[in-house]
């Protein structure tokens, strides 16, 4: 289960690695790799965000991406690239992109955003489970009986609290959030 605390930086220019790590170190645990292969070794399910340079020696960022997803399915990946890509890049599996030269504010806010998206996503799973449960309860009792039903009241209270938590994680949902959160939607009710 990915925690929100660890960022893996995959970048072959060592000065950049140090700078990025320094910017992130007060909020996140940082790991670094200078190549795609090394990154796959370092990557595990505790990594929440990967910063991936698109051009790496020995294999492009695009090629490594599916392998990253295989190893750590819930991880968020921000691509670092020299050229601003098309918005459609999000459908390829990246969660965000940063164009060089990357500045501190951009880097930190992007990582924060990706962590929030993961948290929002987890909350949405809980929300769906509760909403489904409520739908079952509604089907099994009369509206009158439901009003005083304790289980129903408890479910409603939890639903309200999760929605508040979701608003706290993403007070404003932007286009990138929309596309990536829908892209990563669970496919099956049993997956929740």
């Amino acid at each position, binding site marked *: 289960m990915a925690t929100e605390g660890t960022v893996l930086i995959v970048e072959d220019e060592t000065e950049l690695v140090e700078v990025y790590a320094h910017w992130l170190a007060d909020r996140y645990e940082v790991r670094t790799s200078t190549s795609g292969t090394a990154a796959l070794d370092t990557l595990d399910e505790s990594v929440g965000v990967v910063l991936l340079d698109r051009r790496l020696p020995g294999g492009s960022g695009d090629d490594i991406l599916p392998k990253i997803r295989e190893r750590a399915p819930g991880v968020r990946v921000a691509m670092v690239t020299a050229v601003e890509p098309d918005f459609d890049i999000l459908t390829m599996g990246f969660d965000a992109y940063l164009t060089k030269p990357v500045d501190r504010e951009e880097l930190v806010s992007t990582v924060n955003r990706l962590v929030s998206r993961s948290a929002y996503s987890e909350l949405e799973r809980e929300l769906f489970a509760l*909403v489904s449960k409520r739908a079952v309860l509604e089907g099994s009792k009369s509206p009158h009986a439901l009003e005083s039903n304790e289980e129903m009241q408890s479910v409603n209270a939890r639903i309200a609290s999760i929605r508040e938590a979701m608003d706290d994680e993403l007070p404003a*949902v932007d*286009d990138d959030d*929309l596309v990536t*959160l*829908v892209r990563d939607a669970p496919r099956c009710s049993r997956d929740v």
Partner: protein
Amino acid sequence: MYEAHSLHESLSQFDSGTSALVTGEGSTGRVYDALTEVAENEAAILITTDDDARTALAALSERGMPTDRLAIVDATGGDRNDTTVEGVPVRRLSSPADLTGISLEFSKLLAGFQDSGYEKVRVGFASLSTLLMYAELRTVFRFLHVFSSRIRSAELLAVFAVNPGMHEPKTMSTIRTVFDCEVRIGEGVQGTGYV
């Protein structure tokens, strides 16, 4: 969630950021009505899974819809590939199940209108019933939740058509959670008349 009985009077009262569900027979027509009322400084985006772009545009034009600030996401999956229909930009997807594609094309059209200076955009979706036939409820729930949050954040207005008779009560109950309000057509049951 509150209920209203007249879509026309409701829309003008909806706060920006509202996502409304329109239920009952003829709900698609009501979504077209809602788009037709687009204001001068407002643009409109239709996401259609039932009528293809040409058919939808004909229905809108019949209602007097201004087409100079309209764009369509056609997710009916037909084999046409024209990118405009009578001057109206159309983005086509291969299936109503392509919710990521719908989200992507919607976002691009929205950005286009915002870049052109339209602060307000109203969005029509016809219909959720078709979406539920092609995609899992789980996936549709995620889509609706995030989409309506997007509508809220951008202070737009969205109106979704659904025919409850086609779905299990559990499905409808789940879907209804997402929406701020519901307009029920044709039900005199609540006693305040019907549209």
